[in-house]
């Protein structure tokens, strides 16, 4: 069940929320839709679910055009909107039954699918309570259960963990990972760890445009800028600061050497290296050949956070 988006554009009045974006999600892929607030993530989701219609461009869900056969598309999609809206005065079971009926689950299978979602989403203890009485974590589970009641092949989750406490976030993420198996899943978020923890692929969107698209690893490689290596050396009475500076300067690929601190018995040094070159090897050998003691050496990696900041702040 693939999703294909071609040159999608959507504006609200004069405001262009989504500008000519195209991407494709393959069957079974878990894609993280990442971007700052107001980037166009939610709008794109609303377009895929046919809640809104685009100004131009096409969306195909499993080859079906959302504009020509929106009901068929909606049958295939499970959707958890932003803020997870629910009916507070309905109880969990009634609500899930209602959702199943609206999703045209066969009459004979409604009870079974409700039972299954209650079990899978861990709602056993609260199934007879009114939704309004539930904690935020449970509500989120109800929202997920509702989205998956008809066993959809495509799952769209708009900020599924917003507003939860750290324990709940971990639980919900685990639930999403388990449930997302064999499903095509798009998850929007502005939390970076979430993408790293759950997604195969990341699409970063900013100001309505896709600014990056790839696996987390490939993005990290692609956007790796200058590497910084920090090392700690044991002080050697024979060697002065200048000697150390010149010692590392002569290593191939090193751009800048800076002594960060000069405490009683250790030096802390930051070395910047050229893009794409791994100089750790050479640095280690240099230290050894100068008969000095290396206490610590590590390379700072470009995190997804850095990439995100780089791409979305101008």
């Amino acid at each position: 069940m693939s999703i294909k988006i071609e040159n999608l554009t959507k504006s609200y009045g004069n405001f262009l929320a989504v500008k000519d974006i195209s991407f494709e999600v393959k069957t079974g892929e878990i894609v993280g839709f990442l971007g700052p607030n107001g980037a166009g993530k939610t709008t794109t989701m609303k377009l895929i679910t046919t809640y809104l219609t685009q100004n131009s461009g096409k969306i195909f869900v499993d080859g079906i055009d959302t504009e020509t056969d929106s009901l068929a598309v909606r049958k295939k999609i499970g959707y958890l909107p932003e803020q997870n809206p629910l009916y507070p005065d309905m109880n969990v079971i009634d609500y899930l039954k209602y959702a199943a009926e609206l999703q045209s689950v066969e009459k004979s299978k409604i009870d079974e699918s409700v039972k299954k979602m209650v079990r899978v989403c861990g709602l056993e203890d609260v199934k007879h309570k009114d939704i309004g009485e539930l904690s935020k974590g449970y509500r989120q589970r109800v929202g997920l259960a509702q989205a998956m009641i008809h066993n959809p092949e495509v799952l769209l989750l708009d900020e599924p963990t917003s507003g939860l406490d750290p324990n709940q976030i971990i639980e919900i993420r685990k639930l999403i990972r388990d449930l997302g198996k064999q499903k095509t899943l798009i998850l929007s978020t502005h939390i970076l760890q979430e993408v790293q923890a759950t997604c195969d692929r990341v699409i970063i969107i900013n100001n309505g445009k896709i600014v990056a698209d790839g696996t987390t690893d490939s993005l990290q490689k692609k956007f790796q800028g200058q590497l910084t290596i920090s090392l700690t050396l044991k002080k050697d009475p024979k060697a002065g600061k200048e000697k150390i500076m010149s010692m590392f300067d002569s290593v191939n690929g090193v751009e800048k050497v800076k002594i960060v601190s000069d405490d009683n018995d250790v030096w802390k040094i930051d070395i910047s290296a050229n893009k794409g070159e791994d100089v750790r090897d050479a640095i280690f050998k240099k230290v050894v050949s100068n008969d000095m003691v290396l206490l610590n050496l590590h390379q700072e990696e470009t995190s997804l956070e850095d990439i995100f900041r780089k791409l979305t702040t101008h």
Partner: protein
Amino acid sequence: MNNILTIFKKELKSYFYSPVAYIVIVVFLIITGWFFTSSLFVAGVITMRNVFDIIPFIFLFFIPAISMRTFSEEKKAGTIELLLTKPITDFEIVLGKFFSTFGLAALTLAPTVIYVFSLRMLGPVDFGSIFGAYIGLLLMSGLYIGIGIFASSMTENQVISFIISFLIIFALFMMNKILMFIPAPIVPIVEYLSSDYHFSSITRGVIDSKDLIYYFSGIYIMLLLTKTSLEARKW
């Protein structure tokens, strides 16, 4: 059809989840009950006339009150987005909500049938005109509910929804009472638009096709407008 039934059941039940349904039914019965007993015991007349005369006035407030939440509440809570992304058409949603509110109005009217049967024990009753009056009340409430859910679909604020539907219903209701201030050529048009004019024509016991056309076309137009107002999100 199934989808309409699903929404109808859920919506009708949800009136009873909250105190809304109980309050409106009780208030409605207290007011009509007072007019019934006062004509019976104070004036000593066996008639439903006073009850049927007062109900159109109660409807002015009662119908906006029961229909104001239909869409406004869902818009405010955001559940409208869930509903509109399910595989059902917008018009099915509108119909489901319309019939559920209509169902509540009918349930509220139903206990007043007791008045009719208690009158029957005391003396002769003109069942024909009473039947006509009930048909008239149901048609009138249908039109007002159409207006009410249309107003509700336009705003997420239930108070605004109440006021809009009250104003429209009040205007329709008053039209045949201000005919003397209106230039003669347009009097028939204004009179035709008046809901009370058609209601009193039906309560006379004659169910005329022009009255039925008025109510049914009015309901249909309001439902179409509601559907259009739901689709306005896509504009």
